[in-house]
């Protein structure tokens, strides 16, 4: 936050404590009432494996419709954050809120309900090798017992979104790394989750394919109103996602436009981790101005 002060950027963010908000009291007619509840909130989360501290008193929020870019070197607890949101691991102390619900003490059945509204894109795609692309994407719907006709419609729609309709009958082993990743995105987006988590989705991909994945994240943020956590350690991901926005024209064509010098995207925040602590939180412009040696080294690579 040092950098924010040095830049004299005044950010008037209303202090919202979600414990003060009673969801039932919100006016159901007001379309913005529900938006006050953050999509994800971490409150004083501690986590350690054996003697190694992974997260140290971590607190942050992801507002509705916001994309939180989580930066940091390997082993700084980036992926752990995502697993905590899904309830795959439990924090040692502190609370994790998803849509205002404290999921920390939830049992498996309740967690399943939470996970239904969350889509997750894994590092290597994590496709089920024994299932075809169709069955992979349809997995969640099959589990929920949706009718086959509806499933097929949804799967085709999702594969079109990631431009992979032709691969519908292939097995994961036949796909390239980038295609696997895109199928992973399609699988995560089935069922229109309101929260999508990306765990280094572009690691090991060639720049054009990595760009495609980032464009998907931008489309989700700007056109589908999805809240997301985007974990990455690649600076070009940050560049794309924090400085471009998607618009849709009358013909239904999607365009990506640069924010330029006059705009600042408010639905994208950057958070940098170091040894389980937040060393930076704010806009990408602030990140670039930062004097912190760790951050400067991370941005420039030297």
């Amino acid at each position: 936050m040092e950098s924010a002060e040095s830049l004299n950027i005044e950010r008037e963010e209303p202090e919202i404590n979600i414990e003060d908000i009673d969801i039932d009291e919100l006016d159901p007619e007001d379309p913005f009432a529900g938006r006050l509840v953050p999509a994800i909130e971490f409150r004083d989360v501690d986590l350690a494996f054996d003697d190694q501290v992974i997260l140290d008193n971590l607190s942050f929020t992801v507002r509705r419709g916001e994309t939180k870019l989580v930066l940091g070197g390997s082993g700084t607890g980036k992926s752990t954050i995502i697993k905590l949101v899904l309830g795959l691991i439990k924090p040692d102390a502190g609370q994790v809120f998803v849509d205002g619900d404290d999921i920390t003490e939830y049992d498996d059945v309740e967690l399943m309900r939470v996970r239904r509204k969350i889509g997750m894109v894994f590092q290597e795609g994590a496709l089920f090798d024994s299932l075809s692309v169709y069955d992979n994407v349809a997995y969640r719907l099959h589990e929920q017992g949706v009718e086959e006709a509806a499933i097929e419609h949804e799967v085709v729609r999702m594969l079109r979104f990631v431009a992979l309709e032709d691969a519908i009958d292939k097995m994961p082993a036949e796909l390239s790394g980038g295609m696997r990743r895109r199928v992973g995105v399609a699988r995560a987006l089935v069922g229109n989750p309101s929260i999508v988590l990306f765990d280094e989705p572009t690691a090991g991909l060639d720049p054009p394919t990595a760009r495609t994945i980032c464009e998907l994240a931008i489309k989700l943020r700007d056109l589908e109103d999805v809240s997301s956590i985007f974990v990455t350690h690649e600076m070009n991901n940050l560049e794309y996602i924090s400085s471009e926005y998607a618009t849709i024209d009358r013909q239904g064509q999607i365009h990506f436009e640069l924010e330029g010098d006059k705009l600042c995207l408010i639905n994208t925040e950057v958070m940098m981790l170091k040894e389980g602590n937040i060393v930076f939180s704010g806009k990408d412009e602030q990140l670039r101005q930062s004097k912190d040696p760790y951050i400067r080294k991370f941005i420039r690579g030297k």
Partner: protein
Amino acid sequence: MNPLLRLLSELQGVTNLLWRAIKGVKKRPRYMHELVNQMDKIGIGSISIVVLTGFFTGGVLVLQTYPTLEYYGAQSNLGQGIAASLFRELGPVLTALMVAGRVGSAISAELGAMVVSQQIEAMRALGTSPVRKLVTPRIVALIVTLPLLTIAADLFGLIGGGLVAQQLHGMDVNQYISSVRSGTHVADVVAGIIKPIVFGAIIGLISCHKGLSTTGGTVGVGVSTTQAVVASSINVIIADFFLSKLLQSALSSTLF
């Protein structure tokens, strides 16, 4: 970690898995398709090796015992000895060991690879319990198919023994069959079916546990596969001793 602590934590892991697998049987959705699929893979897929094992075990049993029996002029009792040893011990144990080698390794390698490539986490993230979807069908499939495979091994063992007795020792087939029939007791057959049910559960539980607790990338998959086969084989043999003792007193059948 010291060995005793490790043993205890393994035991805890297996017990925990057993409990969750049992709960998985009751809950919906039940993965019937997966169960049938696993029965096909485990049961039908293992028939050939189990039949071959049974056949040659029966054969070698006759080959080794016939000269001794002949020395005492007791050839007419050959079938009784063969039937008793096959039904009580060799059928169940050898079948279980063959299946532990073939299926136990496959299960732990498959689950281990799924852990390493984050597929298990993806499954949980997509709202499915891996225990219910993967572990329960495999254990149930083993419990159902292993007794059937054991019966197949028993039968082919008797056939193999009969063939050796007739071809190499010139024994009359009818005499062999009648001595087999007089040596076959209901208690033996029942014990021979109860044992593989327990062995199936042991193989399934240990292999699934080893697979799901894989760590350390692709090397870890190899390690857990080895451990799964070794641990399930040893445990089958240990359990066999105690089961034999238990069933002996329960079914009041005496060996020979």
